[in-house]
Protein backbone atom coordinates (compact mmCIF):
# COMPACT_ATOMS: atom_id res chain seq x y z
CA UNK A 1 0.00 0.00 0.00
CA UNK A 2 1.31 3.45 -0.82
CA UNK A 3 2.19 5.40 2.28
CA UNK A 4 0.12 8.51 2.98
CA UNK A 5 3.18 10.70 3.03
CA UNK A 6 6.68 9.87 1.97
CA UNK A 7 9.88 11.80 1.77
CA UNK A 8 12.64 10.31 -0.34
CA UNK A 9 16.25 11.50 -0.41
CA UNK A 10 14.98 14.86 0.70
CA UNK A 11 17.46 17.68 1.17
CA UNK A 12 16.42 21.15 2.25
CA UNK A 13 18.47 24.31 2.51
CA UNK A 14 17.60 27.62 4.11
CA UNK A 15 19.70 29.75 1.77
CA UNK A 16 23.18 28.32 2.15
CA UNK A 17 22.32 26.53 5.35
CA UNK A 18 21.37 22.87 5.15
CA UNK A 19 18.48 21.84 7.40
CA UNK A 20 17.51 18.42 6.07
CA UNK A 21 19.99 15.89 4.70
CA UNK A 22 18.93 12.89 2.68
CA UNK A 23 15.75 12.26 4.63
CA UNK A 24 13.78 9.18 3.66
CA UNK A 25 10.68 8.54 5.72
CA UNK A 26 7.18 7.30 5.14
CA UNK A 27 4.01 7.91 7.08
CA UNK A 28 1.47 5.12 6.93
CA UNK A 29 -2.31 5.19 6.87
CA UNK A 30 -3.89 5.67 10.33
CA UNK A 31 -0.68 5.52 12.28
CA UNK A 32 0.72 7.93 14.81
CA UNK A 33 4.28 8.66 13.85
CA UNK A 34 6.31 10.54 16.42
CA UNK A 35 9.37 12.53 15.41
CA UNK A 36 11.87 13.09 18.18
CA UNK A 37 15.28 14.65 18.30
CA UNK A 38 17.22 17.51 19.83
CA UNK A 39 16.33 21.13 19.23
CA UNK A 40 17.30 22.40 15.80
CA UNK A 41 17.60 18.96 14.21
CA UNK A 42 15.00 19.76 11.55
CA UNK A 43 11.78 18.24 12.92
CA UNK A 44 9.63 21.28 12.23
CA UNK A 45 11.30 21.78 8.88
CA UNK A 46 10.43 18.23 7.83
CA UNK A 47 6.87 18.62 9.08
CA UNK A 48 6.47 21.85 7.16
CA UNK A 49 7.62 20.31 3.89
CA UNK A 50 4.76 17.82 4.13
CA UNK A 51 2.17 20.62 3.73
CA UNK A 52 4.44 23.05 1.88
CA UNK A 53 4.49 25.64 4.63
CA UNK A 54 8.17 26.17 3.88
CA UNK A 55 7.27 27.56 0.46
CA UNK A 56 6.67 30.92 1.99
CA UNK A 57 10.12 31.31 3.46
CA UNK A 58 12.36 33.12 0.98
CA UNK A 59 15.51 31.26 -0.05
CA UNK A 60 14.32 27.73 0.71
CA UNK A 61 15.61 25.09 -1.71
CA UNK A 62 14.42 21.52 -1.82
CA UNK A 63 16.03 18.53 -3.55
CA UNK A 64 14.45 15.09 -3.56
CA UNK A 65 10.83 14.11 -3.43
CA UNK A 66 7.92 14.49 -1.07
CA UNK A 67 4.76 12.64 -2.01
CA UNK A 68 1.23 12.67 -0.69
CA UNK A 69 -0.55 9.47 -1.63
CA UNK A 70 1.96 8.83 -4.36
CA UNK A 71 1.75 12.29 -5.89
CA UNK A 72 4.49 14.89 -5.57
CA UNK A 73 3.30 17.60 -3.20
CA UNK A 74 4.88 20.14 -5.50
CA UNK A 75 2.33 19.19 -8.16
CA UNK A 76 -0.56 19.79 -5.76
CA UNK A 77 -2.04 23.23 -5.27
CA UNK A 78 -0.83 24.29 -1.77
CA UNK A 79 -4.33 25.26 -0.65
CA UNK A 80 -5.69 21.88 -1.65
CA UNK A 81 -2.72 20.04 -0.12
CA UNK A 82 -3.13 21.88 3.19
CA UNK A 83 -6.81 21.06 3.38
CA UNK A 84 -5.86 17.41 3.29
CA UNK A 85 -2.75 17.71 5.41
CA UNK A 86 -3.68 19.89 8.38
CA UNK A 87 -1.30 21.34 10.93
CA UNK A 88 -1.41 22.39 14.57
CA UNK A 89 1.33 24.57 15.99
CA UNK A 90 3.33 24.70 19.19
CA UNK A 91 1.64 27.80 20.55
CA UNK A 92 -2.15 27.91 20.40
CA UNK A 93 -3.22 30.31 17.67
CA UNK A 94 -6.86 31.24 18.23
CA UNK A 95 -8.10 33.69 15.62
CA UNK A 96 -9.45 37.00 16.95
CA UNK A 97 -13.07 35.86 16.73
CA UNK A 98 -15.59 33.75 18.61
CA UNK A 99 -15.14 30.06 19.39
CA UNK A 100 -17.80 29.19 16.85
CA UNK A 101 -16.27 31.35 14.13
CA UNK A 102 -12.83 29.88 14.79
CA UNK A 103 -14.04 26.38 14.04
CA UNK A 104 -16.33 27.50 11.22
CA UNK A 105 -13.53 29.55 9.66
CA UNK A 106 -12.06 26.85 7.42
CA UNK A 107 -15.38 25.48 6.12
CA UNK A 108 -16.63 29.02 5.49
CA UNK A 109 -13.52 29.92 3.55
CA UNK A 110 -14.00 26.77 1.54
CA UNK A 111 -17.51 27.74 0.60
CA UNK A 112 -19.87 26.26 3.20
CA UNK A 113 -22.61 28.87 3.62
CA UNK A 114 -25.53 26.92 5.06
CA UNK A 115 -25.91 27.84 8.74
CA UNK A 116 -27.26 24.48 9.78
CA UNK A 117 -24.43 22.67 8.06
CA UNK A 118 -21.89 24.99 9.74
CA UNK A 119 -23.41 24.33 13.15
CA UNK A 120 -23.14 20.62 12.52
CA UNK A 121 -19.51 20.87 11.48
CA UNK A 122 -18.65 23.02 14.49
CA UNK A 123 -20.31 20.63 16.92
CA UNK A 124 -18.78 17.51 15.42
CA UNK A 125 -15.33 19.05 15.29
CA UNK A 126 -15.51 20.31 18.87
CA UNK A 127 -16.75 16.93 20.06
CA UNK A 128 -13.92 15.15 18.28
CA UNK A 129 -11.48 17.56 19.85
CA UNK A 130 -13.01 16.78 23.27
CA UNK A 131 -13.89 20.42 23.82
CA UNK A 132 -17.62 20.47 23.16
CA UNK A 133 -18.78 20.01 26.74
CA UNK A 134 -16.56 22.79 27.98
CA UNK A 135 -17.61 25.38 25.42
CA UNK A 136 -21.09 24.44 24.22
CA UNK A 137 -22.68 27.19 26.31
CA UNK A 138 -20.31 29.93 25.19
CA UNK A 139 -19.78 29.39 21.52
CA UNK A 140 -20.04 33.10 20.86
CA UNK A 141 -17.42 34.03 23.46
CA UNK A 142 -14.06 35.19 22.11
CA UNK A 143 -11.66 32.29 21.64
CA UNK A 144 -8.94 34.24 23.40
CA UNK A 145 -10.86 33.87 26.66
CA UNK A 146 -10.21 30.10 26.77
CA UNK A 147 -7.33 28.58 28.71
CA UNK A 148 -4.18 27.58 26.85
CA UNK A 149 -5.11 23.91 26.80
CA UNK A 150 -8.62 24.68 25.62
CA UNK A 151 -7.23 26.97 22.95
CA UNK A 152 -5.00 24.19 21.69
CA UNK A 153 -7.93 21.79 21.48
CA UNK A 154 -9.85 24.54 19.70
CA UNK A 155 -7.02 24.73 17.16
CA UNK A 156 -7.28 20.97 16.70
CA UNK A 157 -11.04 21.27 16.26
CA UNK A 158 -10.48 24.02 13.73
CA UNK A 159 -8.13 21.76 11.80
CA UNK A 160 -10.58 18.84 11.96
CA UNK A 161 -13.35 21.07 10.62
CA UNK A 162 -11.78 21.14 7.15
CA UNK A 163 -11.72 17.33 7.19
CA UNK A 164 -8.04 16.61 6.62
CA UNK A 165 -6.66 13.12 6.19
CA UNK A 166 -3.41 13.85 7.93
CA UNK A 167 -2.78 16.00 10.98
CA UNK A 168 0.70 17.35 11.59
CA UNK A 169 1.23 18.30 15.22
CA UNK A 170 4.32 20.37 15.99
CA UNK A 171 4.98 20.12 19.73
CA UNK A 172 1.30 20.65 20.47
CA UNK A 173 1.73 20.34 24.22
CA UNK A 174 4.99 22.11 24.89
CA UNK A 175 3.18 25.28 25.97
CA UNK A 176 0.70 23.43 28.19
CA UNK A 177 0.55 22.23 31.78
CA UNK A 178 0.49 18.49 32.58
CA UNK A 179 -3.31 18.32 32.89
CA UNK A 180 -3.90 19.93 29.52
CA UNK A 181 -1.12 17.79 28.04
CA UNK A 182 -2.80 14.60 29.24
CA UNK A 183 -6.03 15.69 27.56
CA UNK A 184 -4.32 16.35 24.25
CA UNK A 185 -2.56 12.98 24.42
CA UNK A 186 -5.85 11.23 25.04
CA UNK A 187 -7.25 13.10 22.10
CA UNK A 188 -4.39 12.05 19.83
CA UNK A 189 -5.03 8.43 20.72
CA UNK A 190 -8.73 8.83 19.93
CA UNK A 191 -8.08 10.57 16.64
CA UNK A 192 -5.55 7.97 15.59
CA UNK A 193 -8.28 5.63 14.39
CA UNK A 194 -9.65 8.08 11.87
CA UNK A 195 -6.65 10.16 10.87
CA UNK A 196 -3.00 9.77 10.10
CA UNK A 197 -0.99 11.71 12.63
CA UNK A 198 2.57 12.98 12.66
CA UNK A 199 3.59 14.27 16.08
CA UNK A 200 6.76 16.22 16.74
CA UNK A 201 7.59 16.18 20.42
CA UNK A 202 10.40 16.75 22.87
CA UNK A 203 8.58 14.71 25.42
CA UNK A 204 9.91 11.18 25.01
CA UNK A 205 7.35 9.69 27.35
CA UNK A 206 4.67 11.26 25.24
CA UNK A 207 6.18 9.75 22.11
CA UNK A 208 6.32 6.38 23.82
CA UNK A 209 2.73 6.64 25.06
CA UNK A 210 0.92 7.74 21.94
CA UNK A 211 2.93 6.74 18.87
CA UNK A 212 2.92 3.54 16.82
CA UNK A 213 6.25 4.31 15.23
CA UNK A 214 8.93 6.77 16.10
CA UNK A 215 11.59 8.50 14.01
CA UNK A 216 14.71 9.87 15.64
CA UNK A 217 16.29 12.83 13.89
CA UNK A 218 19.70 14.29 14.45
CA UNK A 219 21.42 17.08 12.59
CA UNK A 220 18.96 17.09 9.71
CA UNK A 221 19.00 13.34 9.18
CA UNK A 222 16.61 10.59 10.15
CA UNK A 223 18.88 8.33 12.15
CA UNK A 224 16.43 5.61 12.93
CA UNK A 225 12.76 4.85 12.47
CA UNK A 226 10.79 1.89 13.69
CA UNK A 227 7.98 0.64 15.89
CA UNK A 228 7.96 2.71 19.05
CA UNK A 229 8.53 -0.12 21.50
CA UNK A 230 11.43 -1.43 19.48
CA UNK A 231 13.17 1.91 19.16
CA UNK A 232 12.76 2.66 22.84
CA UNK A 233 13.74 -0.80 24.07
CA UNK A 234 16.40 -1.79 21.56
CA UNK A 235 17.60 1.19 19.55
CA UNK A 236 19.76 0.03 16.65
CA UNK A 237 21.81 3.17 16.35
CA UNK A 238 24.14 4.17 19.18
CA UNK A 239 23.18 7.82 18.64
CA UNK A 240 19.55 7.00 19.32
CA UNK A 241 20.56 5.08 22.39
CA UNK A 242 22.56 7.98 23.71
CA UNK A 243 19.73 10.42 23.08
CA UNK A 244 17.19 8.18 24.80
CA UNK A 245 19.56 7.65 27.71
CA UNK A 246 19.43 11.37 28.38
CA UNK A 247 15.85 10.96 29.42
CA UNK A 248 15.50 11.43 33.16
CA UNK A 249 12.49 9.16 33.52
CA UNK A 250 14.12 6.28 31.70
CA UNK A 251 17.08 6.60 34.00
CA UNK A 252 14.87 6.46 37.05
CA UNK A 253 12.87 3.56 35.69
CA UNK A 254 15.90 1.49 34.92
CA UNK A 255 17.51 2.43 38.18
CA UNK A 256 20.71 3.21 36.34
CA UNK A 257 22.54 6.41 36.90
CA UNK A 258 23.39 6.80 33.27
CA UNK A 259 25.20 9.90 32.12
CA UNK A 260 22.88 12.80 31.32
CA UNK A 261 24.13 13.67 27.90
CA UNK A 262 24.16 17.26 26.85
CA UNK A 263 21.80 17.81 23.95
CA UNK A 264 23.60 17.62 20.65
CA UNK A 265 24.76 21.11 19.86
CA UNK A 266 24.63 23.41 16.87
CA UNK A 267 24.85 21.11 13.91
CA UNK A 268 25.10 23.68 11.16
CA UNK A 269 28.86 23.74 11.73
CA UNK A 270 29.23 20.20 10.55
Amino acid at each position, binding site marked *: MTPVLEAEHLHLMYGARPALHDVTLDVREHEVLAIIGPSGCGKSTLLRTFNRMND*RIPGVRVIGSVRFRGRSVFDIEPTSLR*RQVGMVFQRPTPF*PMSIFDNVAYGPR*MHGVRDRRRLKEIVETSLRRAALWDEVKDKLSA*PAAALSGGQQQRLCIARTLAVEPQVILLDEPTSALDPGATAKIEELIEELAGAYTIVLVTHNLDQAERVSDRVAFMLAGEVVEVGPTAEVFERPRDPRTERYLAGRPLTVARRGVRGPRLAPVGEWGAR
Partner: protein
Amino acid sequence: MPPDAGRWTAWRRVQERAVTLCLLLATGVVLVPVASVLYVTVRNGIAAWNWAFFTQVPAAVGASGGGVGNAIAGTALLVMLALFVAAPVGLMAGVYLSEFGREGGFPRAVRVVNDALMGVPTIVLGIFVYAAVVVPMGHFSALAGSVALALILIPTVVRVTEDMLRMVPPELRDAGLALGVPEWRVITSIVLRAAFPGILTGIALGVARIAGETAPLLFTAFGNPNWALNPLQPVSALPLQVFLDAVSPYADLQQKAWGAALLLIVIVACGNGFARAYTYGRKVG
Protein backbone atom coordinates in the same frame (compact mmCIF):
# COMPACT_ATOMS: atom_id res chain seq x y z
CA MET B 1 27.65 49.19 60.64
CA PRO B 2 30.08 51.97 59.66
CA PRO B 3 29.79 55.03 61.90
CA ASP B 4 28.57 57.37 59.18
CA ALA B 5 25.86 55.05 57.88
CA GLY B 6 23.19 57.32 59.34
CA ARG B 7 24.55 60.32 57.51
CA TRP B 8 24.51 58.34 54.27
CA THR B 9 20.89 57.41 54.74
CA ALA B 10 20.00 61.03 55.38
CA TRP B 11 21.88 62.14 52.28
CA ARG B 12 20.15 59.48 50.22
CA ARG B 13 16.81 60.70 51.44
CA VAL B 14 17.67 64.28 50.45
CA GLN B 15 18.70 63.08 47.01
CA GLU B 16 15.51 61.14 46.61
CA ARG B 17 13.41 64.11 47.62
CA ALA B 18 15.25 66.35 45.17
CA VAL B 19 14.74 63.99 42.29
CA THR B 20 11.06 63.56 43.09
CA LEU B 21 10.66 67.32 43.26
CA CYS B 22 12.30 67.79 39.86
CA LEU B 23 10.04 65.17 38.29
CA LEU B 24 7.00 66.81 39.83
CA LEU B 25 8.06 70.22 38.53
CA ALA B 26 8.57 68.87 35.03
CA THR B 27 5.16 67.23 35.12
CA GLY B 28 3.73 70.56 36.25
CA VAL B 29 5.33 72.33 33.30
CA VAL B 30 3.56 69.90 31.01
CA LEU B 31 0.24 70.14 32.81
CA VAL B 32 0.01 73.89 33.31
CA PRO B 33 -0.45 74.88 29.64
CA VAL B 34 -2.93 72.07 29.03
CA ALA B 35 -4.88 72.96 32.12
CA SER B 36 -4.89 76.68 31.36
CA VAL B 37 -5.97 76.14 27.75
CA LEU B 38 -8.80 73.95 28.96
CA TYR B 39 -9.76 76.38 31.72
CA VAL B 40 -9.81 79.49 29.55
CA THR B 41 -11.61 77.79 26.68
CA VAL B 42 -14.27 76.26 28.86
CA ARG B 43 -14.76 79.48 30.80
CA ASN B 44 -15.17 81.63 27.71
CA GLY B 45 -16.72 79.08 25.43
CA ILE B 46 -19.40 77.50 27.56
CA ALA B 47 -21.39 80.76 27.62
CA ALA B 48 -21.67 80.63 23.83
CA TRP B 49 -23.23 77.17 23.91
CA ASN B 50 -26.94 77.26 23.45
CA TRP B 51 -29.45 75.75 21.07
CA ALA B 52 -28.97 78.45 18.43
CA PHE B 53 -25.20 78.02 18.58
CA PHE B 54 -25.47 74.48 17.34
CA THR B 55 -28.38 74.86 14.96
CA GLN B 56 -28.19 78.27 13.28
CA VAL B 57 -25.93 79.90 10.76
CA PRO B 58 -24.05 83.08 11.75
CA ALA B 59 -26.22 86.16 12.13
CA ALA B 60 -25.74 89.19 9.86
CA VAL B 61 -22.62 91.18 10.74
CA GLY B 62 -23.22 93.29 13.83
CA ALA B 63 -26.48 91.57 14.75
CA SER B 64 -26.42 89.28 17.78
CA GLY B 65 -27.62 85.66 17.87
CA GLY B 66 -27.00 83.05 15.23
CA GLY B 67 -24.67 80.11 15.55
CA VAL B 68 -22.07 77.92 13.94
CA GLY B 69 -24.31 75.12 12.75
CA ASN B 70 -23.00 75.46 9.22
CA ALA B 71 -19.42 75.14 10.45
CA ILE B 72 -20.25 72.00 12.40
CA ALA B 73 -21.94 70.49 9.37
CA GLY B 74 -19.07 71.66 7.18
CA THR B 75 -16.44 70.06 9.39
CA ALA B 76 -18.44 66.83 9.44
CA LEU B 77 -18.70 66.90 5.65
CA LEU B 78 -15.01 67.67 5.14
CA VAL B 79 -13.84 65.01 7.57
CA MET B 80 -16.21 62.42 6.16
CA LEU B 81 -15.15 63.04 2.58
CA ALA B 82 -11.48 62.97 3.57
CA LEU B 83 -11.97 59.76 5.51
CA PHE B 84 -13.86 58.24 2.61
CA VAL B 85 -10.79 58.68 0.43
CA ALA B 86 -7.96 58.32 2.94
CA ALA B 87 -9.14 55.24 4.81
CA PRO B 88 -9.33 52.83 1.85
CA VAL B 89 -6.27 54.24 0.11
CA GLY B 90 -4.20 54.28 3.29
CA LEU B 91 -5.36 50.83 4.33
CA MET B 92 -4.54 49.28 1.00
CA ALA B 93 -1.13 50.92 0.80
CA GLY B 94 -0.41 49.81 4.38
CA VAL B 95 -1.43 46.24 3.59
CA TYR B 96 0.75 46.30 0.51
CA LEU B 97 3.78 47.51 2.47
CA SER B 98 3.35 45.03 5.27
CA GLU B 99 2.23 41.93 3.39
CA PHE B 100 3.73 42.14 -0.08
CA GLY B 101 6.43 44.77 0.05
CA ARG B 102 8.60 43.94 3.02
CA GLU B 103 11.75 44.39 0.97
CA GLY B 104 12.73 45.94 -2.31
CA GLY B 105 13.29 49.35 -3.80
CA PHE B 106 9.73 50.33 -4.54
CA PRO B 107 8.30 49.66 -1.06
CA ARG B 108 11.26 51.42 0.50
CA ALA B 109 10.66 54.44 -1.74
CA VAL B 110 6.98 54.41 -0.78
CA ARG B 111 7.91 54.45 2.88
CA VAL B 112 10.28 57.38 2.43
CA VAL B 113 7.71 59.36 0.45
CA ASN B 114 5.01 58.55 2.96
CA ASP B 115 7.13 59.72 5.89
CA ALA B 116 8.02 62.85 3.94
CA LEU B 117 4.36 63.54 3.27
CA MET B 118 3.72 63.22 6.98
CA GLY B 119 6.24 65.97 7.63
CA VAL B 120 5.03 68.45 5.01
CA PRO B 121 3.56 71.57 6.68
CA THR B 122 -0.17 71.47 6.17
CA ILE B 123 -0.27 74.93 4.63
CA VAL B 124 1.97 73.63 1.85
CA LEU B 125 -0.54 70.87 1.17
CA GLY B 126 -3.20 73.59 1.10
CA ILE B 127 -1.36 75.57 -1.56
CA PHE B 128 -0.81 72.42 -3.56
CA VAL B 129 -4.50 71.56 -3.50
CA TYR B 130 -5.31 75.15 -4.38
CA ALA B 131 -3.21 74.82 -7.52
CA ALA B 132 -4.28 71.30 -8.32
CA VAL B 133 -8.01 71.42 -7.54
CA VAL B 134 -9.29 74.92 -6.82
CA VAL B 135 -7.74 76.67 -9.82
CA PRO B 136 -8.89 74.09 -12.41
CA MET B 137 -12.37 74.02 -10.88
CA GLY B 138 -12.50 77.79 -10.86
CA HIS B 139 -13.79 78.07 -7.27
CA PHE B 140 -13.30 76.94 -3.68
CA SER B 141 -15.11 73.79 -2.58
CA ALA B 142 -15.60 71.28 0.19
CA LEU B 143 -14.12 68.77 -2.22
CA ALA B 144 -10.86 70.68 -2.40
CA GLY B 145 -10.82 71.04 1.39
CA SER B 146 -11.29 67.33 1.91
CA VAL B 147 -8.59 66.52 -0.63
CA ALA B 148 -6.21 68.61 1.45
CA LEU B 149 -7.35 66.88 4.65
CA ALA B 150 -7.07 63.48 2.98
CA LEU B 151 -3.47 64.25 2.07
CA ILE B 152 -2.79 64.80 5.77
CA LEU B 153 -4.67 61.68 6.82
CA ILE B 154 -3.34 59.20 4.25
CA PRO B 155 0.26 58.96 5.47
CA THR B 156 -0.96 58.43 9.03
CA VAL B 157 -3.27 55.62 7.97
CA VAL B 158 -0.57 54.00 5.83
CA ARG B 159 1.90 54.07 8.68
CA VAL B 160 -0.50 52.86 11.34
CA THR B 161 -1.80 50.07 9.12
CA GLU B 162 1.66 48.81 8.27
CA ASP B 163 2.86 48.96 11.88
CA MET B 164 -0.21 47.25 13.28
CA LEU B 165 -0.14 44.49 10.66
CA ARG B 166 3.48 43.80 11.41
CA MET B 167 2.63 43.32 15.05
CA VAL B 168 0.29 40.43 14.25
CA PRO B 169 2.14 37.23 15.23
CA PRO B 170 3.31 35.24 12.19
CA GLU B 171 1.84 32.09 13.77
CA LEU B 172 -1.62 33.48 13.14
CA ARG B 173 -0.93 33.77 9.42
CA ASP B 174 0.57 30.28 9.35
CA ALA B 175 -2.45 28.87 11.14
CA GLY B 176 -4.75 30.37 8.53
CA LEU B 177 -2.64 29.15 5.63
CA ALA B 178 -2.39 25.69 7.18
CA LEU B 179 -6.17 25.38 6.80
CA GLY B 180 -5.73 25.64 3.04
CA VAL B 181 -7.00 29.20 2.87
CA PRO B 182 -5.44 31.38 0.14
CA GLU B 183 -3.06 34.02 1.40
CA TRP B 184 -5.11 37.08 0.46
CA ARG B 185 -8.13 35.70 2.31
CA VAL B 186 -5.98 35.01 5.36
CA ILE B 187 -4.86 38.63 5.23
CA THR B 188 -8.33 40.09 4.92
CA SER B 189 -10.11 37.77 7.31
CA ILE B 190 -7.53 37.13 10.04
CA VAL B 191 -4.53 39.43 9.91
CA LEU B 192 -6.47 42.62 9.25
CA ARG B 193 -9.01 41.61 11.83
CA ALA B 194 -6.35 41.06 14.45
CA ALA B 195 -4.80 44.43 13.64
CA PHE B 196 -8.12 46.21 13.37
CA PRO B 197 -8.36 47.73 16.86
CA GLY B 198 -4.94 49.29 16.47
CA ILE B 199 -5.67 50.57 12.99
CA LEU B 200 -8.99 52.01 14.10
CA THR B 201 -7.26 53.78 16.98
CA GLY B 202 -4.77 55.32 14.58
CA ILE B 203 -7.51 56.46 12.24
CA ALA B 204 -9.48 57.97 15.13
CA LEU B 205 -6.43 59.97 16.20
CA GLY B 206 -5.88 61.07 12.60
CA VAL B 207 -9.48 62.17 12.26
CA ALA B 208 -9.29 64.12 15.49
CA ARG B 209 -6.25 65.85 14.08
CA ILE B 210 -7.71 66.81 10.69
CA ALA B 211 -10.92 68.04 12.33
CA GLY B 212 -8.84 70.79 13.91
CA GLU B 213 -6.74 71.72 10.86
CA THR B 214 -7.16 75.33 9.72
CA ALA B 215 -4.32 76.17 7.38
CA PRO B 216 -5.11 73.79 4.52
CA LEU B 217 -8.77 74.88 4.53
CA LEU B 218 -8.09 78.62 4.14
CA PHE B 219 -7.73 78.47 0.38
CA THR B 220 -9.56 75.24 -0.35
CA ALA B 221 -12.85 74.98 1.53
CA PHE B 222 -12.60 78.74 2.13
CA GLY B 223 -15.65 79.15 4.37
CA ASN B 224 -19.29 79.88 3.76
CA PRO B 225 -21.69 81.86 5.97
CA ASN B 226 -24.65 79.76 4.86
CA TRP B 227 -25.72 76.16 5.05
CA ALA B 228 -23.85 74.33 2.32
CA LEU B 229 -23.54 70.62 2.05
CA ASN B 230 -22.77 70.45 -1.62
CA PRO B 231 -19.24 69.11 -1.96
CA LEU B 232 -18.72 71.31 -5.00
CA GLN B 233 -19.46 74.51 -3.07
CA PRO B 234 -17.30 76.36 -0.56
CA VAL B 235 -18.09 75.21 2.94
CA SER B 236 -17.44 76.45 6.44
CA ALA B 237 -15.53 74.52 9.09
CA LEU B 238 -15.10 74.93 12.83
CA PRO B 239 -11.43 75.95 12.74
CA LEU B 240 -12.19 78.49 10.00
CA GLN B 241 -15.07 79.86 12.05
CA VAL B 242 -12.83 80.22 15.09
CA PHE B 243 -10.31 82.07 12.97
CA LEU B 244 -12.90 84.46 11.44
CA ASP B 245 -14.85 85.18 14.62
CA ALA B 246 -11.84 85.56 16.87
CA VAL B 247 -10.36 88.38 14.79
CA SER B 248 -13.68 90.19 14.39
CA PRO B 249 -14.27 93.33 16.47
CA TYR B 250 -17.61 92.11 17.90
CA ALA B 251 -17.71 90.68 21.39
CA ASP B 252 -20.58 88.41 20.45
CA LEU B 253 -18.62 86.85 17.58
CA GLN B 254 -15.53 86.54 19.75
CA GLN B 255 -17.55 84.58 22.23
CA LYS B 256 -18.75 82.33 19.40
CA ALA B 257 -15.11 81.77 18.50
CA TRP B 258 -14.50 80.52 22.06
CA GLY B 259 -17.56 78.33 21.81
CA ALA B 260 -16.38 76.82 18.54
CA ALA B 261 -12.90 76.34 19.99
CA LEU B 262 -14.39 74.49 22.93
CA LEU B 263 -16.36 72.30 20.55
CA LEU B 264 -13.16 71.48 18.67
CA ILE B 265 -11.47 70.49 21.90
CA VAL B 266 -14.40 68.26 22.74
CA ILE B 267 -14.23 66.61 19.32
CA VAL B 268 -10.50 65.98 19.57
CA ALA B 269 -10.88 64.67 23.12
CA CYS B 270 -13.65 62.34 21.98
CA GLY B 271 -11.42 61.01 19.21
CA ASN B 272 -8.61 60.35 21.65
CA GLY B 273 -10.92 58.98 24.30
CA PHE B 274 -12.51 56.61 21.84
CA ALA B 275 -9.11 55.46 20.68
CA ARG B 276 -7.95 54.77 24.22
CA ALA B 277 -11.12 53.10 25.40
CA TYR B 278 -11.12 50.90 22.34
CA THR B 279 -7.52 49.72 22.59
CA TYR B 280 -7.50 49.30 26.33
CA GLY B 281 -10.81 47.47 26.25
CA ARG B 282 -9.41 45.08 23.67
CA LYS B 283 -6.10 44.47 25.39
CA VAL B 284 -7.85 43.21 28.49
CA GLY B 285 -10.22 40.93 26.58
